[in-house]
């Protein structure tokens, strides 16, 4: 029981790191980006290819996955995404679905459609018992890394100058611009870091979630659930939503394997019907 809870928390933390970038960019530019999972996939494949083809150690690949995906995100933001911000939501949805289709087929073409395997180093394998709770070492590793990232993000957002600029821009981009904040630059950085985090999440999750070319489509719904249920105005909202989703999914798959996904989707519909702004969001100022 507690082991399941532990696994659920690990899964939830992973989902949070994967989708926090999406939450921030969606809150900032009101942009519906369905292609967020493609960046996560890019990070996952960076790790897999570096490990399996070049023999780079697992831990060293993680920062590389982050940096590579962040650069990729910055490039895409600058060239393709920026003209899309002012468009209607329908255009944004179509555009980002198009990107997903291209990413899925492109990876399929260059790397192959098979499931990618990675072997985490031996010191992260296996599990130990702590007060009769079986704890997987790799799961613990994920929780620690993601926990540290969450704290760091929260600190950056609440304590630094960049954080206050970002929050101002989320609240009202026009007024922020009027106060001399370079909103475009803030957004470029945020998008890059958000994509980088997704890439890191994809790299960390390659062992747990599995990695194949359909990854962006398979997990798109999960990211969107986290963002829409958690709301886009805070960091804690998506965090709690991700934990809730992770725990519900793991528990659901264990206790009612036939109904797992069914429960998750039904829960989402109920929550969104009762609270359209998300569980933890407040009404947007616009």
């Amino acid at each position, binding site marked *: 029981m507690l082991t399941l809870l532990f696994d659920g928390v690990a899964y939830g933390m992973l989902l949070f790191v994967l989708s926090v970038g999406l939450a921030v960019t969606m809150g900032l530019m009101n942009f519906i980006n369905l292609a967020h999972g493609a960046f996560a996939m890019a990070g996952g494949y960076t790790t897999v290819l570096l490990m399996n083809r070049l023999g780079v150690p697992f831990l060293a690949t993680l920062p590389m996955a982050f940096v590579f995906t962040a650069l990729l995100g910055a490039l895409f933001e600058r060239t393709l995404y920026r003209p899309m911000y002012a468009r209607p939501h329908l255009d944004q949805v179509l555009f980002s679905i198009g990107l997903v289709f291209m990413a899925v*087929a492109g990876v399929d073409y260059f790397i192959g459609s098979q499931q990618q395997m990675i072997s985490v180093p031996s010191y992260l394998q296996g599990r130990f018992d702590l007060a009769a709770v079986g704890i997987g070492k790799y799961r613990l590793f994920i929780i620690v890394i993601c926990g540290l990232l969450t704290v760091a993000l929260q600190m950056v957002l609440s304590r630094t100058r960049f954080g206050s600029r970002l929050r101002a821009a989320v609240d009202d981009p026009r007024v922020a611009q009027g106060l001399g904040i370079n909103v475009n630059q803030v957004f470029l950085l945020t998008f890059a870091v958000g994509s980088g985090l997704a890439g890191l999440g994809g790299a960390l999750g390659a062992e747990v979630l599995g990695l194949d070319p359909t990854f962006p489509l398979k997990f798109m719904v999960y990211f969107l659930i986290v963002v829409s249920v958690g709301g886009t105005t805070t960091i804690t909202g998506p965090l709690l939503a991700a934990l809730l989703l992770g725990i519900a999914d793991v528990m659901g798959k264990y206790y009612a394997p036939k109904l797992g996904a069914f429960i998750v989707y039904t829960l989402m519909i109920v929550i969104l019907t009762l609270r359209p702004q998300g569980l933890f969001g407040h009404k947007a100022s616009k």
Partner: protein
Amino acid sequence: MSAVQASLKAAAAWRWWEMALGVAAVASFFLLSGHALLLNEIAILALFALSLDLILGFAGIVSLGHAAFFGFGAYVAALFAKHVMPDPLVGLVVAVAASAALGALCSVLVLRGSDLTRLMVTLGVAAVLYELANKLDGLTGGADGLQGVVMGPLLGRFEFDLYGRVAYAYSLVVLALAVLLARRVVHSPFGYSLKALRDNRLRATSIGLSVNLRLAAVYTLAAALAGAAGGLLAQTSGFASLDGLDFHRSADVMLTLVIGGTGYLYGGIFGAIAFKLLHDVISAWTPQYWTFWLGLFLVVLVLVGRDRLIRPWTWWKRS
């Protein structure tokens, strides 16, 4: 007759190209009967896209889960034919009624919240139905699909043939009826009020329109038409499967509609023709990777803008 009445009348008048489209549809049945199977698919997709146009183009609801009603209609039609009676027309009516009921039920869910919330809720409804159909394998056949559906002859006389000629005629007639119905609805005061609340919900409310009732009504109507499309597919192919509820079907129909253009009723028909032909050509050329070209097409379509893309003579002009 006042000037306003006259302008409304003029807007609702039949255009020459609408007539031409009708003639072309009838002609295609006689001249292109060798391709009736493909034409049947196009007619069904057009009907499906038309139903999405009613909520997306006229009421402004962005839905990523319209396949929910399509797949539901398909299952209802197939199950009805298998267990109750094999007559296609009665089956279609039942499928339409069931989908309309489901649509009315779900319309409560799309009234509130932002575009994102609505996107998620529609997607969620389709996903829930997909999971249900997958789990209830005793009833639906699960992942294998519902097999062994034998349809009776149409009107008690015309058997469905292998070449799809009867099927195409059947789908075409249903599509024509649906277009007539949708046309009537769109040019009615109700249709104009939908456009008003699409453009500005706040103002529409303040001139006294009951927004929620109207949205619910059009959502139900769209669900009924989507169910008709699904029912047609199940009846003409004698098969219903999870594929009908899948996410890619919702995405495809949205793409179809966007290619054809939203908000003028015939976008679904032109889009369906373009989409199916495109699909046929590209997947014959590169079967495994055709989604790449589909994705590229979408990205270019949105970046360049649909209006510019289908009017090449504007490409070199400054906007």
